[in-house]
């Protein structure tokens, strides 16, 4: 037995102990084991998340009169740009699929790994390579980009900051996303355990499947758009430059053709994770399995039809504006279906209240606010007033942070014992939630109000009439950060000193709970043969005493 296991009762050799031909760090960064790759993504993306949070913290400070001159206006522009780039490209988009998708997908479908393990590791290298290039771009050339994460032309063509390199970094990151999508689609088609037909597959894999299609189809459009920006800056091809006949609106179309579906890359796996958590703590099967599976596909599909709702005030044709507004209303429907199904799952369930459930419920609440404000923005008359205001900022933080962020936290709390074989302090998880929830709403609900009052986004300065709102929001950000620190400190301590976790601490019934925590290298001694659907809780149906 290895030293790590001295204090613990015997358990099978896990993927954490068994590093294969190489030891230590090398054993990690050269491993093609999907579980190790998932953990690599976890540490990397959480690192970028921490930096993004820190930047957000500073941005909020600067909006207090007392600290306003902490940074210059130019620096502020760079701060919100980098905050967006880090959070979106290095945390939220990569977040759930490569971390929990990589770790859990093979386990949940009864496979030993993904379809292309070496490609999986290569995807992580692309991720880290792109990230490093982005970081280098912050400290070289003309300094960090100040264009906003959307890199709108013509400013992104004219600014002296290091847009070219940053955009190249994002380009490299795109490969990570595309290759992961290819890997997951193939894995789901080819590697499900015997007996696991499509409709016996758990709903997290369904969500990953829909997400992977978006990754495959939409990311290349971003890739070419970024290449065009680089070419414009480097050689002046003229496609976006009005002086040469180019059109900035073309850039917006191309950019949002990816970036809108991208938000569904962010939210679908989050919804999938929530769909796993609720049945386990309601001790009953998910309500409307097929509806949820099909709504994931529908969201992916319809979500690709609505991109120009980011461009209502940009100068598009009347026809396009009305068409995209209509389509935007449609895309809310499958999301709403999910919310109804989740709530119905809990109804008359035998509720076991545990930290993952609390964070999952919080997700439903925060995501609903985010979703509803999104529908509001889809209405043209409202959009004219709220576009480019704090209302938008509030909206997308509710869906991206309240939604994907909290789902990430919930998934982490749910699967942490499985991944690391340790249990964290549940009490601390509850304690962390209080300032997180209060702080989150203080921060972002206030933004919704500020936006309706007319506070523009991406502004270093603001009129005195917005002072109170900014003060509330900033104090909210402090609570939020406090909560995040407590939350992660809990997990870090548990990682090294937590009590040993059993194979199935929550009484889940999907396949990942049928093996040891942490899982052995090959996942399953024998590939299971699946004889029923994924969320069967009646003991008789599972042939258990």
């Amino acid at each position, binding site marked *: 037995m290895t030293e790590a296991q001295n204090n613990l009762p015997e358990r099978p*050799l896990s993927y954490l102990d*068994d*590093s*294969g*031909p190489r030891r230590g760090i090398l054993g990690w960064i050269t491993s*093609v084991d999907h579980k190790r790759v998932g953990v690599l993504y976890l540490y990397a993306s959480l690192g970028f998340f921490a930096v993004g949070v820190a930047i957000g913290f500073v941005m909020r400070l600067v909006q207090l009169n007392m600290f306003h001159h902490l940074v210059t206006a130019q620096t502020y522009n760079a701060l919100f740009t980098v905050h967006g780039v880090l959070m979106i490209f290095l945390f939220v988009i990569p977040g759930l699929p490569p971390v929990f998708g990589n770790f859990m997908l093979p386990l949940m479908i009864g496979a*030993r*790994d993904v*379809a*292309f*393990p070496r*490609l999986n590791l290569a995807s992580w290298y692309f991720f880290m390579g792109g990230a490093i290039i982005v970081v280098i771009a912050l400290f070289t050339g003309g300094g960090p980009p100040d264009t906003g994460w959307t890199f709108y032309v013509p400013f992104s063509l004219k600014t002296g900051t290091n847009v070219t390199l940053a955009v190249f970094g994002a380009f490299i990151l795109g490969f990570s996303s*595309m290759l992961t*999508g*290819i*890997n997951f*689609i*193939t894995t789901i*088609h*080819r*590697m499900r355990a015997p007996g696991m037909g499509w409709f016996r597959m758990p709903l997290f894999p369904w969500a990953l499947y829909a997400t992977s299609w978006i990754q*495959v*189809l*939409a*990311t*290349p*459009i971003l*890739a*070419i*758009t970024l*290449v*065009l920006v680089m*070419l414009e800056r480097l*050689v*002046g*091809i*003229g*496609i976006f430059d009005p*002086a*040469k*006949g*180019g*059109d900035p609106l*073309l850039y917006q*179309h*191309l950019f949002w*053709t990816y970036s809108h579906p991208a938000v569904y890359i962010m939210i679908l796996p989050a919804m999938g994770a929530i769909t796993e958590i609720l049945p386990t703590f309601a001790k009953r099967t998910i309500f409307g399995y097929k509806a949820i599976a099909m709504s994931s596909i529908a969201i992916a599909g319809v979500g690709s039809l609505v991109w120009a709702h980011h461009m209502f005030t940009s100068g598009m044709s009347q026809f396009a504006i009305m068409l995209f507004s209509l389509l935007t209303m449609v895309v809310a429907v499958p999301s709403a279906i999910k919310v109804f199904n989740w709530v119905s799952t809990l109804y008359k369930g035998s509720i076991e209240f545990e930290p993952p459930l609390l964070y999952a419920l919080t997700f439903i609440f925060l995501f609903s606010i985010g979703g509803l404000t999104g529908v509001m923005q889809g209405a043209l008359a409202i959009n004219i007033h709220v576009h480019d205001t704090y209302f938008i900022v509030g909206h997308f933080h509710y869906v991206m942070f309240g939604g994907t962020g909290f789902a990430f936290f919930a998934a982490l709390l749910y699967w942490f014992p499985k991944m690391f074989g340790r249990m964290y302090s549940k009490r601390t998880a509850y304690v962390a939630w209080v300032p997180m929830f209060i702080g989150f709403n203080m921060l972002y609900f206030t933004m919704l109000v500020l936006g309706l009052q007319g506070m523009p986004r991406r502004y270093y300065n603001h009129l005195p009439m917005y002072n109170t709102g900014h003060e509330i929001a900033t104090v909210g950000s402090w609570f939020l950060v406090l909560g995040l620190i407590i939350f992660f400190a809990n997990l870090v301590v548990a990682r090294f000193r937590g009590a040993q976790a059993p194979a199935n601490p929550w009484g889940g019934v999907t396949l990942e709970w049928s093996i040891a925590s942490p899982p*052995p*290298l*090959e996942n399953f001694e024998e590939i299971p043969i699946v004889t029923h659907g994924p969320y069967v809780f009646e003991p008789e149906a599972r042939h258990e005493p």
Partner: protein
Amino acid sequence: MNHSVQAHEHELEHRDDFGAKLGMWLFLLTEILLFSGLFLSYSYMRARYPAEFHHAGSEMNAVLGVTNTLVLLTSSLTMALAIVAIQRGERKRAMAGVVATIVLGVVFLVNKAFEWHAEIHHGNYPGSAHLATLPPGEQVFFGLYYTMTGLHGLHVLVGISVLTVMAVMIKRGRINPDRFVTLENGGLYWHVVDVVWIFLLPLFYLAA
């Protein structure tokens, strides 16, 4: 340590030719979507500047364009023939097919080099003084021309490199009649490169 040895062996055991092909098709989808971004841009701009695009296109070298089309179509043929050959165990023919494809790819690139050289010589390149005197629509035309044929040429180059590796693999027997999905996948990539050019031809060379 027994476990990890077993796991390693198990990894080697897992062979899924159809999965490999599926993965390749999905990758090719991303390539098609990548070029589609440029085709979207082209159609957007052509809708805005129909006359200028027509005019600039009429000055392009249609002969070179059509020649290159024939070169690539033939290279797709030789590639497809190579795969029939390996399926039938005719290793030498398979090798000949792959090598012919590579040679035709190089011919394509040489033609492209001449073409670009000529255009640059006429002052038709982004940032040139001459281009700045042309109407905006024509400037955009040339911007798209270099971007699209350039990106395509890059893919031809990558294809040539990949096929060269495959030729070596055939020689060493790693691609053989029992195991040739790798060659099939290489062929699929090459055909997509051909299809992109099939669309580029009328867009840039046949506007007259």
